[in-house]
């Protein structure tokens, strides 16, 4: 099984981290993974995106042309990437910043006011964790257990209350993802 993801949004929304944590957890589960960010001045003020591949086989190209899953945190990301989602693929988007949504009917679309929910949980910053949760809930591309372990290790003892909030956001996301 190979899952190809694109996460895209504004520079500060933490899309690179979404890909990174997924790849990290996938790796912990023994899968092959790759993570390829956009970089350079295009990022300054503009949009950022990252291609992540998680696969049981060796990964040929880390460039994702036709994502199985697209996480779009703002409208420009939908315009740019939604047309190339594989038929039957998944689009996850943030209604707070994607007022026009997506017109495709051959894909599975999950949307939520992610900014609002994140704020509710405690901080707009956990928006990316929410997105991770939705992906896990919807696809089980990686397990919650792996993600929790990885995150716990990453945040370490540094700020336990932050870890708590992040895990809460993931769990909330999983709920949304399961629908």
């Amino acid at each position, binding site marked *: 099984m190979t899952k190809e993801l694109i996460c895209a949004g504004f520079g500060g929304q933490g899309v690179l981290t979404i890909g*990174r944590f997924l790849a990290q957890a996938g790796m912990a589960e023994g899968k092959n993974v790759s*993570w390829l960010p956009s970089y350079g001045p295009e990022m300054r003020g503009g949009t950022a995106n990252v291609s992540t591949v998680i696969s049981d086989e060796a990964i040929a*190209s880390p460039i994702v042309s036709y994502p199985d899953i697209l996480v779009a945190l703002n409208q420009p990301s939908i315009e740019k990437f939604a047309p190339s989602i594989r038929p039957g693929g998944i689009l996850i988007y943030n209604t707070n910043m994607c007022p026009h949504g997506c017109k495709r009917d051959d894909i599975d679309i999950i949307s939520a006011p992610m900014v609002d929910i994140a704020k509710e949980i405690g901080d707009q910053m956990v928006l990316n964790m929410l997105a991770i949760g939705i992906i896990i809930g919807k696809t089980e591309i990686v397990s919650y257990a792996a993600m929790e372990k990885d995150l716990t290790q990453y945040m370490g003892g540094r700020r336990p209350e932050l870890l708590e909030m992040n895990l809460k956001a993931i769990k909330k996301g999983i709920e949304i993802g399961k629908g």
Partner: protein
Amino acid sequence: MAKILMKGNEAVAEAAIRAGCRLYFAYPITPQSELIEYMARMMPKVNGTFLQAESEVSAINMVYGAAGCGKRVMTSSSSPGVSLKMEGISYIAGAQLPAVIINVQRGGPGLGDIQPAQGDYFQATKGGGHGDYRLIVLAPASVQEFADMASEAFELADKYRNPVMILADGMLGQMMEPVEFKAPKTDEEIAELWKQHKDWCIQPNEDGDAKHHHEINSLEIDPLMLEKHVNKIYAKYAEIEKNEIRYEEYNISDDNEILCVAWGTASRIVKSAINELKKAGKSIGLIRPINVWPYPYEAVAKAIGPKVKQVYVFELNTGQMLDDVKIGVNGKVPVKFWGKVGGVVFTPAEIQAKLEECF
């Protein structure tokens, strides 16, 4: 050791340190800056030298000086910065010094852009500097391979006393993949490495040693002496051409109707396309040169199976390795080329479409 998810730029830096690299001189440039920044953080921790040079020209000449002392030394840059190193590289080759140079290629010519490209193949493999010399050129296609090549590069450089280039690109530099590192060399092992060059390198006279007068030099003002010197270097190159050809065969079989040749990042995309076409029952093989100099001419020739009617070269340039493929194929079947330039990376789908046109 457990796998770590790491950027190529950082992985190769870590691997170089583990391989005993204790001197690193470079100048910042995108998309290799994580490499210099990693070295800035880590070299002090192993009592190594990190020094940001005032330019790429200075950096390569610092490498010349340190390599002349027989120690493992490295520099890295990206395309325009590598062009500035050409004179220095020619000197290093001429003086027969071991050194490792990394080029994380970006789009050109000129200032170009900072996206991945393979436009420096000619420069790396045919000697962008003046005079007759060759670099051993390793072309990674994954973060793991990029990292592994650090120690290979140092081994080759030491073995042949010749500069070795790792020819990567912005994608390999910027992407993260799981990577597993070799155990770091111990201080004793590193001291041992340095000793292998004691017959020629710059070093103090030790008590009891015979006094030596070593010269690090590429000048021979008498042409007959220079001829001798260059011939000696080329005898070494013949040796390298015999020993150090490395390539990967992917899906090569007698059923192949097309033989692809691609290197580095481009090869991964071609593999994706081959996998896709396999599902549609099409048999396509791939030769991926791992070392692009010395070049696997014979491997390319041999891989042309009985049913192959077309050799197809894909590169992220205007067709540079293409020349070498043509030389390898030597007229047996037609050779076709398709590439993308300017830092645009082709997609598996595009390659697939190009290959389908051949059936």
